């Protein structure tokens, strides 16, 4: 980027600054697009799951629905409720936005495609997402609305509680790869499923589970969507937000969905790793990365439209009583496992393949069970009467 600008005859300092701004703009554009498209994907998918159609009027298959929503929200009136803390109320959405937006910097889109490969990438990731809590808390507090306040408090309690098991759970992949750099973690895995972090040992499976559950909670998705539980807290912390500021919340929430999917992909599902012979093709690598991320996102949406939500005490209990000890177990277990099999890579491989095969069997059983539902559904209803059919 800078070199192109330098080529245009600009001074180096100017080029640096301009380059940074341009990069940020590109990422922002991507951020908006991803957030928007995901809202459309979620609405269509939820429609599909509920035997509806979902938005299909704007553009092909309603694909441009998110643009319509965005334009509409931008042109809505910007209200600041009476009695609200004006400064905090206006600032809060941007904290949420920055918290999610900055994580895109360290995401490796494929092998070698990364904006800034920090050597503390994962650490940076965990810490920058904490900004979201501040934003949510600020929004809840400043709105001068009791539902918002409750939502904000719930969010703060929930996200802070779940950050601990998630952080501890992520220690397992760090232990295996020996680095905090995202590119490094990705590089320590292979393209084959049993080379993925997920299947490496029983403890990585446990760690994946902890991470996934915790991420759902941090992203405020059902079954952990208590901060904005629609049937309880009306709309939670963003109850009083209108127009553009609400759009920012909306966008960062769905972009967060993508970020969670991407992080899961990078850390546990092998990222954009390719077989050795085509490892140079960055486009394919990007595609693989997006495919895997898409699958994870689909899984999250599927969960969202299937499960009911927890109660606040059950949520806390899950985090502190079950996930936290499990995270410690995973960490120490993995350390022990690595010590025991330090010199025996074949045992490690055998274990990985075994876990992968178990996963396949479980998947088969699950599909079989689900397909029973689909078969039963085919009982006819409202078929035309014999007399009507003859006409």
């Amino acid at each position: 980027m800078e070199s192109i600008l330098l080529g245009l005859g600009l001074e180096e300092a100017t080029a640096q600054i301009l380059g940074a701004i341009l990069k940020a703009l590109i990422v922002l554009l991507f951020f908006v697009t991803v957030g928007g498209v995901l809202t459309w994907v979620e609405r269509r998918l939820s429609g599909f799951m509920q035997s509806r159609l979902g938005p299909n009027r704007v553009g092909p298959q309603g694909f441009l629905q998110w643009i319509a929503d965005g334009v509409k929200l931008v042109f809505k009136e910007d209200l600041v409720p009476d009695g609200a803390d004006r400064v905090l109320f206006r600032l809060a959405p941007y904290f949420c936005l920055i918290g999610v937006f900055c994580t895109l910097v360290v995401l490796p889109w494929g092998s070698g495609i990364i904006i800034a490969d920090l050597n503390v990438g994962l650490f940076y990731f965990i810490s920058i997402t904490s900004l979201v809590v501040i934003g949510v808390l600020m929004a809840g507090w400043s709105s001068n609305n009791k539902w918002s306040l409750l939502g904000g408090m719930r969010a703060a309690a929930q996200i802070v509680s779940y950050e601990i098991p998630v952080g501890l759970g992520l220690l397992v992949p760090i232990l295996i790869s020996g680095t905090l750099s995202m590119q490094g973690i990705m590089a320590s895995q292979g393209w084959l499923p049993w080379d993925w972090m997920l299947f490496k040992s029983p403890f990585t499976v446990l760690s994946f589970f902890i991470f996934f559950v915790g991420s759902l909670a941090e992203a405020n998705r059902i079954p952990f969507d208590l901060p904005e539980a629609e049937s309880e807290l009306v709309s939670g912390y963003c109850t009083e937000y209108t127009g553009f500021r609400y759009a920012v919340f909306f966008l960062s929430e769905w972009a967060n969905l993508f970020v969670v999917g991407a992080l899961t992909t990078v850390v546990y599902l092998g990222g954009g790793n390719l077989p050795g012979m085509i490892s140079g093709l960055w486009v394919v690598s990007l595609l693989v990365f997006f495919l895997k991320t898409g699958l994870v996102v689909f899984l999250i949406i599927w969960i969202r439209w299937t499960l009911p939500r927890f109660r606040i005490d059950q949520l806390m209990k899950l985090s502190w009583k079950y996930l936290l000890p499990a995270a410690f177990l995973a960490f120490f277990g993995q350390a022990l496992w690595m010590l025991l099999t330090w010199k025996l890579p074949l045992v490690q491989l055998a274990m990985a393949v075994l876990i992968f095969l178990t996963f396949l069997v479980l998947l088969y059983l699950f599909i079989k069970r689900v397909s029973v539902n689909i078969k039963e559904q085919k009982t006819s209803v409202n078929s035309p009467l014999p007399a009507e059919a003859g006409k």
Partner: protein
Amino acid sequence: MKTLHNSFESDGFVLTSIDHLINLARANSLWYLLFSTACCGIELMQTGGPRADLERFGSAPRAVPRQADLMLVAGTITLKMASRVKVLYDQMAEPRYVISMGSCANSGGLFQASYSVLHGVDRVIPVDVYLPGCPPRPEALLSALIELQNKVKKEKYLRKK
């Protein structure tokens, strides 16, 4: 001279087309407030359900008036409720629209002889589309929504000052 004067006063090509685009976006994203009081509320739910599916038109339900563009007054409004309806309407952000769904919201309907029923929701808030029926069928509600979309598309959003 007069025609020249008029041409300056008219809206101009750029504004018109931007307006057209904005209106297209707004018309296709009328989020409605989940506000059902009586019988029509069930039909509203059915309209949001699989067979009619309001979401096809980009109308998602919202629980909060702040984020809603469209208020579907579904059902009887009593005098006790009337001031609350006004508050709900005031909480919505501009531009906002109201569909008065069913006879009760239009005029008090079956209950207009009663001591506690408001004679039409238009006594407290302005109404854009009146939808008759007791209760209206989902198809009727969809047609009312399309009618409102047509109204939104014809508005002069940027040009109104």
